[in-house]
Structures are given as C-alpha cells and as structure tokens.
C-alpha cells in the first residue's frame, strides 16, 4: 500500500484463489506489476478452506499458504482484499477497474492480528468458514492462516458494545469507517473468480436441506480438516461418530432440473478423497459412494479411485433418493440396485454427504462486457489453442471462472493465462497494437 504509483499496474488479477495467486505470481516473477483484487477479507479462495487435496492427499493449506505468503510478500504484487469489483472497462486503451473497498471497521495498517478484540467480543455468529458448525465472533480474523492476519467487524451482527475498541492495543477499531472507492488502471486483467457451490435446498429428493445429517461436501471438508469445527469427525445432529457415511454424487450436477446440466468435474475426486480420509479417521466406518459415472480422469486419479476401492470404500452405481430420517437420526435412502437385479433397496446411513454442483463464483453482468457461455461461466472463444482468451482484448481467464476445474487444472490454466497476459503486455510495451495481439 505504500507504493507511490499505488493505482497503476500492468495487470489486474480478479480473485485470489489458487488460480489467481498462481497467475499473479507468474506475472510478478516476470517483473510485471500486479494488483490482486479479492472480494473476501483474506486471500486464498476455496483451496485454503479445504482439508487435504487429491490425488496426493497433501494438506491444502500447506500448498496454498506458501503461495499466499509469496504473493503477499512479492515486491511486484499489491493485494486489495475485501474489495468489490464494481466495473471493469477499457478507457483510453487502458483497463480501468473501479473497486469498492468494503469497510472492515478495523484499520489494516494498525491491526496487528493479535485477536484481543475477538476474545472480548460477546457476539457469537455461525462460522461459515467452518461449515456453520462452529461459531465465530462479530469481530474476527477470517481463519487461522488468513492473509492479511487482520480483523474485521461483521456489521450485520455487531452490537456496538465497544469492547473490541477498548481492548485493541493499537486502537485499530473504527466503527465509523465508510466504504471507499478506488480506481485501478492496468493494461491486462486475469479473471480468476472461481466457483460457488449450489445450496442444499431445492432438491426434494434430498430433503431440501431440512435434514441435519444431510450435509454438503464442503461441510465435510471442514469436518475432516485437522483444524475443523469439532476437531474430529462427528455428525451434526447429535455429535455421534458416524459408522456409516454415504455420498450422493451428481446431487446437483448433470441435472437440468436445477439448471446445471454440466458435470461439475471435481466431485468424484473430492468424494473419493473424503472417503479415504474418513476411512483413515474412522477405520471401522463404512463409506458408500452412490454414483452415476466415476470421473477420475486426471493424472493419477484412476489409480486413486482404484486404491479407494481396495481400501474397502463401496461404490454403488445408483442415484438414490432420501426417504427420510430414521428414529436414531440416521438417513434412509432408497436406491435401485442396477448392478444386481434392479430391485429397490433401502439403506440407512448415519451421515449423508451431497456432492453438489459448482456454479460460477462471479458474474460479469453489470461489471464488464465479458461474455458468458450457456453454463454461466466465462466464455472462451478459442478453447483449443488459447483456452484463457476471452472475448475482451487484454482480459484473460483462469481456473474455475471458465468452468468447473480441479486444483491441478486450475494451476495449469493460471500459468497459461499469465503467459498470454505477459505476451499481451510485452506486445504493448514493444509498441505493437494490442488489438492485433489479442485477435
């Protein structure tokens, strides 16, 4: 923030998940000045919230934090967290991004991340970072390895009791902070706005989100994470350690009734991964995966799938419906035993995890004139030879912003997007026509 030309950059990276970070680092390593714009209060995106990642089963945080730290400390990178991108347009042959810095009510310059405020705050709020299974305070640091390690106030829940301001050693709390508008200029932009997961509701065959022991795979990530809400794997309704866990694949993917006819691409693999982690955490638990097709297509993925089968994880080709709760709180499923004689089988599981679909994390509508495909993800007019090109010259796309994608593929695409952006920038520097380069 102390850079003299604070708002002039070579490239703007929208989104700071693994794709955004990777793209930004690749540009910055070539001495381009990069601004990262992040909507959340911390960089890191979805990946930093995961437990372990396939197919190597290494800890997500251990891979993300070095990239986060590298970006945070990179001399060529400036990070704007908690900023909404309000418009992105080309003016006088430069890209102009208008941001709104949302108020944190805590001065980023003054806050030292000591969390005294958090300990004093009397308000408990369900913590979305922990799948809603744990509570956080109304003033809080988003999560343990957040960057920046700075607090913010959740204005919707703050009761203005003043305790945080009183206890803050640096007097960083400012209840009167207002949103601030910023204008960034750059020559190129990389859109890495990632994905969101569809909500549990709107699927009658899965209880419309009303059954406590029917949870999303993202919630399961938290239950499995070493720093998760319960510190071990328990089911939410009664804290029982589940003996039988079931996964329902394609719970909101490949399904036109929920508007997601496409495959969300990552669910098979994260399910297999979670199933393995459950088997590790609860060796006696039965894990069943109900699926239509197991899509283990990446490097090492098929072997990963075979290993899971060898570990005793059961894969059943069927798409079940939830028939309701049993008396003990377990979930009753009905499925068609296709691999046998096709009869309908009723099964009970202590905990059911839905592999929900991925939808775009951001829509360019009203912000810039980027075109989207029928699936709502950013359109890539040359998906073969230049997969990160968009329809706007100088604007590139990386990762799940251009369709559901796993971490490995997102990282590759981010590298590719950074290369295309670097060449676009280099061409401009050489005085070549930007439009020609992009065409």
């Amino acid at each position, binding site marked *: 923030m102390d850079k003299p030309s604070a708002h002039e950059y070579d490239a703007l990276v929208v989104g700071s998940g693994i794709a955004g970070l990777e793209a930004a680092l690749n540009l910055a390593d070539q001495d381009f000045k990069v601004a990262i714009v992040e909507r959340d209060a911390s960089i890191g995106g979805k990946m930093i919230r995961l437990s372990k990642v396939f197919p190597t089963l290494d800890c997500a945080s251990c891979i993300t934090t070095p990239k986060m730290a590298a970006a945070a400390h990179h001399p060529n990178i400036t990070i704007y967290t908690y900023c909404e991108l309000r418009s992105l347009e080309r003016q006088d042959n430069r890209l102009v991004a208008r941001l709104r810095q949302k108020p944190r009510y805590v001065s980023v310059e003054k806050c030292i991340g000591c969390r005294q405020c958090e300990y004093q705050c009397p308000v408990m709020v369900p913590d979305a970072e922990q799948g809603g299974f744990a509570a956080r305070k109304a003033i809080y640091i988003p999560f343990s390895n957040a960057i920046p390690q700075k607090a913010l106030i959740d204005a919707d829940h703050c009761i203005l009791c003043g305790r945080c301001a009183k206890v803050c050693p640096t007097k960083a709390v400012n209840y009167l902070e207002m949103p601030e508008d910023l204008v960034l200029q750059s020559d190129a932009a990389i859109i890495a706005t990632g994905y969101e997961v569809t909500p549990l509701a709107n699927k009658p065959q899965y209880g419309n989100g009303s059954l406590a022991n029917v949870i999303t795979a993202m919630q399961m990530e938290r239950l499995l994470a070493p720093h998760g809400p319960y510190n071990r794997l328990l089911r939410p309704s009664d804290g029982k350690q589940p003996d039988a866990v079931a996964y329902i694949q394609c719970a909101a993917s490949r399904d036109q009734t929920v508007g997601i006819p496409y495959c969300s691409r990552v669910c098979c693999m994260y399910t297999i991964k979670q199933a393995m982690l459950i088997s590790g955490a609860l060796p006696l638990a039965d894990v069943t995966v109900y699926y239509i097709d197991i899509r283990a297509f*990446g490097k090492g993925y098929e*072997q990963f799938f075979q290993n899971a089968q060898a570990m005793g994880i059961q894969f059943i080709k069927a798409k079940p419906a939830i028939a309701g709760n049993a008396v003990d709180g377990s979930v009753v499923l009905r499925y068609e035993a296709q*691999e046998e004689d096709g009869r309908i089988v009723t099964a009970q599981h202590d905990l059911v995890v839905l592999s929900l679909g991925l939808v775009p994390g951001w829509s360019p509508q009203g912000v810039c004139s980027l075109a989207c495909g029928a*699936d709502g993800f950013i359109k890539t007019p040359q998906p073969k030879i230049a997969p990160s090109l968009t329809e706007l010259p100088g604007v590139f796309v990386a990762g799940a912003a251009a369709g559901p994608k796993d971490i*490995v593929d997102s990282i*590759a695409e981010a590298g590719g997007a950074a290369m295309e952006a670097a060449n676009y920038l280099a061409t401009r520097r050489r005085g070549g026509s930007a439009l020609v380069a992009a065409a």
Partner: protein
Amino acid sequence: MSTPESPKETTGTGKVGVYVCYCGGNISDQVEVEKVCESLRQLPEVGVARSNMFMCSDPGQELIIEDIKSGKVDRVVIASCSPRLHETTFRSAISRAGGNPYLYEHANVREQVSWVHHGSEATAKANRLVAAAVAKAALSEPLQPIRVDVQQRAAVLGGGVAGMKAALELADRGLEVILIERSPFLGGQVARLRHLAPFGEDAAAVIAELAGRVQEHPAITVQTCAQVEGFDGYIGQFRLQVRRRPPEAEEYADQLAAGSAAGAQLGDVVPFVGIMPQRLPENLEEQEITVGAIILATGMRPYQPLRGEYGYGDLPQVLTLPEFTRLWHAARSQRQGDLLVVQGRRIRHLAIIHCVGSRHIPGVHDEGGRGYLNEYCSRTCCTASLYTANLIRQTYPNTRVYEFYRDMRAFGRGQEELYAQASDSQVMFFRFRAGEEPQISPTSEHPTAPVLIRVKDVLTFNEELEVMADLVVLAVGQEANPVPGLVELMKLPVGADRFLLEVHPKLRPVEVAVAGIYLAGTCQAPFDVGETCSAAAAAAVKAAAVLTRGYVELDPFVAEVDLSRCQGTGACVEACLADGALTMVDMTVDGQNVRRAQVNPALCLGCGACVAVCPHNAINVKGWTLKQYEAMVDAIVAEDLAA
C-alpha cells in the same frame, strides 16, 4: 498494560542487536519483556538489547536501522511474532540500513511463547529462545543471493501442439526459441485427427494456424528430423548436442508418400500427416546449442491394441478410433445416402468400445505380452467417442451407433452436452464392468458379415445382451511417447504410468527436479488439445520467468564445501538428492592435487542431506549450519539463563 520504558542501552562486547517486541501486550502480557532484554544483555555476543511496543512499525524498524548505521550492531535478532509474518519486513529494514539481510535471526515469542504459555514459564522460555537466536546469529555469515546468468534462449523438444504452443508463447515474449522435432513434420498426433471434440474444430486448421505462426515467427528456428544426443549444464546454461539426419528408408515413408501424393509443398497441411516445414536433411548435421531453459513436449502416441484384443487384427470389422477416422474421411467423398460406408462396406450398426488400453486393473486385466498395464484413464477417449457417435448419427441417420463404456467421463465444458446429444440421437449405451469386457465374435465365415457383441450390461441389471455390429471401433487411450534417450541424458523422472513425472502436481506442476527443464502437454499425462495448450503455456510462463531477466536469483541457502576440512570421501555426493548438485572434482589445495567435493549452487536444493553424512563436517548449508544448530541447543540447555 505496561508500556516500555524509554529504551535503555547497555552495550556488550558483541555486535548482535536484540529487539524484543511487546506486540501491544500480546507478548508483554505473558512475557516480561524488559527482563528478557535485561538477561540478554548479559550475553557476551549481545551489543544492544531493546524493546518496543511494535517492532514492525516504522519507529520499531528505525531502532534497528539507527543501530546498524551507527555501527553498534552488525547482526540482528528480533523477538516478536512468527517469522512468517515479518521476516521479510525486518530483512528489508536491515538492507535499508546497509546491512546484510542474512545477518538476522528471528525468535518467535508470540506464537510459540506468549500465546501458548503463561507466567514465569513464558518469560523463561522467551529468554531461552532469544538466547538461542543470538547464538545462531552470532555464527551467521553474510550471504548474497546466487545469481546465475541465463542464455535468453529456449529449446523446445517436440513439434506437436504442445511444442508449437510453448515455442510461440516464448517467442511472442521476445525470446529466441529452437524447436526440435524428431520427424520431418510439425503437428504431432493432432495432425492425425480430423475434428477436435467436443466443439468440432478442424484439426488441420488448428495445426495450420500454429505451424504457420511457428514458421513465420522470426524468433523461432525449427529443426525437423532432429534429435538431442547430448546434454549437460544447468538452468540458464544448458548445452544440447542436436543431430539432424535424413530419415532412413522405411521411416516416415508412408507419410512422405501421402505428402507427395497430395502434391503438398513445404508448409502445406497434409491430412493425417502434418506439415513439412523444411526439406529433409541430406547429410548428417550436428551442432551444439546453448539454451537457458528446455521445454519437453515429446507428446504421446495412441495405444495400439494387441492382436486379438476385442478381435483386433483377427477380424476386419475391428478398427481403432484413429484408424476408423482416417478411413471414414478418406471415403467421405464416396458418401452413399444415409448410410456410412467404410472400406466399401455398408455400416448399418457401428459399435464403439471405450477404455481400450486404459484403466487396466492389476489382477483383473493381464499384460498380454505388453509387459505393462495402463492403469490410468486416458481422459480424452470418452469425449472423442461421443463426438464421433454424434457425427455419424448426424451424417448418416441410418447408421446406428452403440457405445460400450465403463464410466462415461464427459467432464469438461461442452462434454456432458455431447453425451446428452448422443443419447438424444438414439446412440445406445451399455455399461460394462472391468473384467467383463464385451466379447466380440464373428457370426459367419464371411469377412464382411456383422459381428456379435455380447456384454453383461449394468444398465440392464447385469443381464447379458447381444448386439450385432458391422463395425467395431476401439476407443484407444494415450500412451507416453517413449523417449528413453532423453530420460537417460537429462535424468528425467518417469512415473509408473510411463509419462514424465513432475515434481509436485500442484506446487510445481510443470517442473522436473532439474531446475530449468519444464514439461508441456501429453508427455506428462493424457490431455486434450485445450488442456495441452494450457499446460504448454504454463510451462512457457515458468521458462519465461527464468529467461526474460537474463539471470536468475536463487536462494543463497545452498551447500558449501569447507576445503580446509574436506577429505574427498565422496559421502556427500552419494547422499545428494539433486543430480549434479555435488560432484567430485580434481583440484589443487595447498599445492596438492586432490579430489574434492564441489557444489553447483544452481542445482543445489539446500536440503542438507550432504551435511549429515560428512564425517568431517566439511560441508554445510549456508545460513543453516550444523554449528549454528549446535550453538542453539547449547543456549537452550545452558544453566545460567534462567531469568
């Protein structure tokens, strides 16, 4: 909450400056900061010990800068929060003061002390941790980042889509590229396709565009019929021996004939062959090139079924997908009505079998003389099959299509749509389980009679079904193009799947252990064209970061041989994890010719595997020496520090 008193100065004999942070109470609430300063001042190494409310703040940093500038301090110990938060802050402060940023050590007294311990225990532990840091700092040496000059030129091995894409990206970035291709053609495997799934781009057009730009680009030199025969050097300075030679009689004869039959000129697309960018060499040509980075784009080859696999080779009705595509398009001019005709045979019923040469399971499938199993999924065949099925159904509505699959892997953008479209156009799908592959048998002696396919279909409750087909197409998978020569020369890691192996799929996905060598495209894993181009550009961006500056700065934390101690046992070389980072060389020490270990800093990873094995402690990792650790342990166990 106490506030620090005005800084006291008690100058000791040494020149270590100790700065303890209150962290606004976060540390000082549990640790008696002033007591820590007081006891640290007793240490002989310490020149100055100060405290501040916020060491990371400007006034805090000023304390350090002033002390360095005034000469009181030449090395710094900060006791504050985790080094991961502010190590860079303090290093740059030292640099600004004109000091060496590596004469610095950090004691983590917040995360490791005040936040986890309480009361006198906390102060005592903080004391020891700071003392240990002082002990280490006292033994620190000034370090400089290792700078390696870089040849601003790259070699790309392989002239397929990945190679051409990578070459173009680097060339557009203003870097010189030498593109080395073993065959006489550019285009690789993609040149042998017709359409690209799922969107149906014309493969020849894609090749023509890439190859056209490659040939026109002034920064790219193409060398076909060329192979790398020699390799040495390291990142920034690789030397490659490249040999161009005329193809031998049988080699590429068919493709060359196809080209001349089509009357193709240099640079023209020859269907199912590629583009010949330059004349064949007439003599053996050898040259040495020096490059800063190498991109491997050696690609893949389609799986070739064994004789008898699904009747392949025994029954004329069984073809692989690439073979079928080629025959079909060759015969397309003789299109007859609504029915597909291949090799003069009318195809009323066409069956496509998935996972041929992919997803083998040990114990279920047998190697069948291949000597290996392809346990991986080839990623592209499902979509290619669906695309083909749709194209047939659209073009020849009277030709029926059946697909036999294990899992339909239509995962990418536009792929599930292909699957839905295929279903809608009445392609019939059958799902078989591994080990229960469809059985193909001839129905009569007549070679053009339909064959009978028997399958236990999961979708029909595992009942055995029979399908008659005039043609069976095997959707064959991808295999790594074998490059034993390069693997040997460059010590490339090869995975169990026989593809080249990256260091880590997420942290360093396009790199191999040797710095400066990158992987692009299907030499690494099966990919489609879009994914290949992404991967190629990702490899290019890593190479570009190295090449554009003309030098690379590497961490100074690499091994260093103390020649006064080295006895030339070679134990370190044996233990070294990075090939070529440590070597035994002949040299003159004190007038004697001896063999001693030598570090190549450009290749050293700084892991310290060598340190542990040296019987004479003659090798150490700079900045992390064994002596420093011993000194820290001494400080931790010392009796006299209990404050």
